[in-house]
């Protein structure tokens, strides 16, 4: 088991993502820890993934706060007219 996880970056990185997005099982966490202890490349990937998450999160917020694409006032009026008609 030790060797399998030691050399398996693909799995370790998948666990990294799962750890960042949800929760690892205790066994998964153990595998993750063992691998990370020894693997510089995967630590680097973990850092990248966390940064990317932060960045995307900010982007999502930005899209919500200041939508880059706008409907024209006329389009909105027309849209609202249809909405009112139906409701």
């Amino acid at each position, binding site marked *: 088991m030790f060797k399998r996880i030691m050399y398996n970056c693909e799995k370790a990185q998948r666990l990294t993502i799962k750890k960042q997005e949800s929760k690892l099982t205790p066994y998964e966490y153990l595998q993750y820890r063992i691998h990370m202890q020894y693997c510089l490349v*995967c630590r680097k990937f973990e850092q990248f993934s966390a940064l990317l998450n932060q960045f995307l999160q900010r982007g999502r917020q930005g899209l919500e706060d200041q939508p880059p694409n706008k409907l024209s006032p006329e389009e909105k009026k027309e*849209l609202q007219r249809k*909405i009112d008609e139906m409701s």
Partner: protein
Amino acid sequence: MKNELNTREWAEHYGDYLFSLASYKLNDIELARDLVQETFLSAIKGKENFRGECSEKTWLVRILNNKIIDQYRAGKKEVPMSEYLNQTEKSFADHYFDLDTPGEYGHNKIASFPAIPGLESDFAINQSELKKVLDLCIGKLPGSLSNVFLMKYVSGENADFICEKFNLSQANYWVILHRSKLLLRTCISKIWGR
């Protein structure tokens, strides 16, 4: 009553946001415009389904996301995701992981993992530059991956919804997010690292 919809200002309140979201994900302004309208109209038709468990906005985004997924489906012949992942597994592994070392895949090939200056250290980075690069790279992801990736990271949908809609197992969901991020990393480092 809490779960009553107030549709009077919908176009003003949510129009731009839904339009931006749809444009970003579909890369098609006209289609995005149509889907925004359809979203509002479906919402009104199904208003008894709104139970006030989430905000109006969240509810509308969910309806829009469903419509976007229908578009993805209509757009091309459907290859089951598990099949796609199996077919591409070897080339992916060959490129990123050193198959000569023991274990299932072995270590990442160091050569395919150059550090990204500024990005992987606490360093002031030019946010708007990075955003441009990232958008470009997301646009280059294979469609099967980017649909899931965008649903997760741009729309902020949860894993259960995504797995159900794309007919994915949880395991494959993690595989897709992992591959997307690795591909993005390579793409960003190519452009950013120059």
